[in-house]
């Protein structure tokens, strides 16, 4: 049994292609049924997010199924394979397992370590379970993918630092104030980024939000959404000394906050640290403000710098994560290999045992009067012959590592000995017999 993955992601396809091949959630049931109807596909699953669309299948014939899945991907969205294929990647066997484990552990994401992908794959797996398209192999496969992702999350620091500008602002604030509880945030201007950052601050315990804007009504509505207070733009500077964290994003072409304003505020607040974030372009806060003692001024580029530094840190952690993934892939692969080989070995033994029993009975009945000891000797001899013959092929089959080779040998064994293999689970589709 093997895993096959066919799909595309932000790394291989532009958004124009990705939006065309996305699967709608309503149609998933039909799509999964169509997938299962494809030849040789025994189990199937569809992952469709804004950054990636992937089909997972469990099969005995990975090569054929790869082609089938590629065709399915194109046809179900009314595209020709010629258009879509350059953007598609296909993995089989161990590569497929590794790919899915990496995706689930968020190592293949646009932002390495982002947490959403795990939830998205869990949802996709949930759909597959509902539609009964996931069986023994995919069930185990997905559970192993989830536990590998969990190991990565707990054993590395891959997701411990901020990689968005608004969250980086929170992280910095905590390096200044330690705790954000009982701190006051002021929004100057009502930009979207400001609002997002303010939301993060509130979630981390900021208790008071002041909002000021040239149009007072806009300030009022924004203040309401945070349970804060609107301040008149004309005299917001008088409130500066009460502010611990200031987010500025006005459309003003000139500086709105000058060094003198902040110096005065600092004196009034007895030099408690102040954290000023200037998100506006052109800037709102005079850069000279950053030189004042215990005032920390960051503009958009500085915050980007934090994000870049954190991303580098994540890349370092990703190396550790890859090691964990390697271990987990190997473990799952062993299980899968066992699952594939065992039925053949069992059938082979059964076949030869049948022959042995039949021939033994015939010989015993034609020889007639033998005592117990002689019967036992004959029995032992024949079973020794069978075991000796089977010894090498069994060992060879168990040792084969490359999936394609293994499949070829398994095919050969099945053909040569005319074996009929029982699938390891009931909910797997019937295997074709040669």
């Amino acid at each position, binding site marked *: 049994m093997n895993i096959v993955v066919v799909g595309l992601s932000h790394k291989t396809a532009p958004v124009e292609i990705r939006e065309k091949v996305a699967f709608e959630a309503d149609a998933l049931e039909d799509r999964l049924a169509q997938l299962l109807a494809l030849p040789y596909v025994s189990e199937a699953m569809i992952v469709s997010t804004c950054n990636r669309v992937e089909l997972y299948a469990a099969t005995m014939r990975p090569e054929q199924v790869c082609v089938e899945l590629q065709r399915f991907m194109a046809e179900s969205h009314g595209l020709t394979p010629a258009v879509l294929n350059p953007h598609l990647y296909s993995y089989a066997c161990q590569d497929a397992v590794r790919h899915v484990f990496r995706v689930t552990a968020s190592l293949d994401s646009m932002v390495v370590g982002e947490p959403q992908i795990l939830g998205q794959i869990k949802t996709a797996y949930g759909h597959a379970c509902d539609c009964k398209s996931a069986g023994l192999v995919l069930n185990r496969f997905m559970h192993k993918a989830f536990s590998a992702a969990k190991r990565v999350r707990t054993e590395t620091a891959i997701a411990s630092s901020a990689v968005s500008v608004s969250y980086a602002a929170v992280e910095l604030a905590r390096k200044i104030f330690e705790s954000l509880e009982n701190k006051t945030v002021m929004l100057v201007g009502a930009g979207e980024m400001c609002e997002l950052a303010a939301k993060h601050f509130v979630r981390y315990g900021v208790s008071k939000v002041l909002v000021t804007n040239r149009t007072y009504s806009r300030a009022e509505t924004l203040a309401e959404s945070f349970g804060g207070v609107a301040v008149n733009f004309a005299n917001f500077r008088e409130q500066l000394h009460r502010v611990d964290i200031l987010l500025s994003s006005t459309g003003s072409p000139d500086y709105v906050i000058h060094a003198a304003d902040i110096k005065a505020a600092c004196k009034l607040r007895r030099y408690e640290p102040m954290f000023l974030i200037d998100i506006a372009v052109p800037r709102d806060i005079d850069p000279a403000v950053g030189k004042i*003692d215990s005032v920390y001024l960051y503009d958009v580029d500085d915050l980007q710098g934090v994000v870049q530094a954190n991303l580098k840190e994540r890349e370092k952690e990703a190396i550790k994560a890859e090691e964990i993934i390697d271990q987990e892939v190997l473990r799952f692969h062993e299980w899968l290999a066992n699952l594939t080989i065992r039925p053949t070995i069992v059938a082979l033994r059964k076949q030869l045992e049948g022959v042995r029993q039949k021939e033994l009975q015939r010989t015993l009945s034609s020889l007639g009067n033998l005592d117990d000891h002689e019967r036992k000797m004959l029995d032992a001899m024949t079973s020794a012959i069978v075991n000796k013959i089977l010894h090498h092929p069994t060992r060879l089959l168990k040792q084969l590592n490359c999936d394609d080779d293994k499949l070829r040998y398994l095919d050969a064994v099945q053909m040569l000995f005319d074996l009929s293999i029982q699938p390891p689970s009931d909910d797997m589709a019937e295997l074709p017999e040669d």
Partner: protein
Amino acid sequence: MCCADWWKRSYFNVELFARLCYLNVLLSIVIVCAERETMEPVTLLFALTTTLYLVASLLYLTAMIGKRENAGRLGRWVLLVGVVAHAAVFAVRHSMVSGTPVTSLHESLSFFAWCLVLLFLLLDLRFRLSVMGAFAAPSALCLMIFSALSPDVVVPLNPVLRSWLFPLHISFAFLGNAAFALSFGAGVMYLIQDRMLKSKRFNRLYRMLPSINVLDQVNYTCLSVGFPFMTLGIITGAVWANLAWGGYWSWDPKETWALITWFLYAGLLHGRLTVGWRGRRAAFFSIVAFMFLLFTFLGVSLLFNGYHTFEVFSMP
């Protein structure tokens, strides 16, 4: 498979343990060589204490650099055992000289280390900062090593100076010193972290150090603990001098320098409480003041003649 994983995960600790054992042996040899005389129980206890401080230092450094909280927690326990063993050193010495055993340079440095660790452990109850441990434990270790290198002579106290004020005086003085040493450490860390935040460099150091607000608080707490101790140390010293020599203040070099240092710290505390000094300025000030303190503690005793040179304690 499971066992293999366990081994891999605990690899770091195993390596650390091996390194500790090696250093332990090395250090014991150094101490034995420095002592030369036969190993007495005191010396053994002293070596044990030093080793414990060493282990705690390594654990705290591991916690800080390797971001392993467990190592910090373990370091705290090791340091606690160390401080108890160290107390035993002084108890034994006390019975040996039947008096307060802080008269030689050897004993002074060792006592300083003990006060430092004790105060750090108390501070740790409130702040739980393994980063401070990474400063305090190695500092104590250095003091112990210098103490081991300076000649260990048991000096019976001059009968003129024998007084119940002596132990009080040195306890207050050294606890003050230790508190100021911690505030110095926090001040240095503050300046580094402030620089990181201002220059927008987000390197390893930035990640390891705590927030500047916490560092400022630690700096202030240590200052507010150290100042009363120092004041009491000076007062008890003056009273004791009056008992021994019939004069409260005689402008002995130690007294002069202690007074200068006291004024510096008084100025800093005043600035913090009334003018609202904090952050960079306060951190910088506490570093400068500690330099003066170090000179008062070591420089004066070693360079000038006066009541506080270590020889003066001996019999005339």
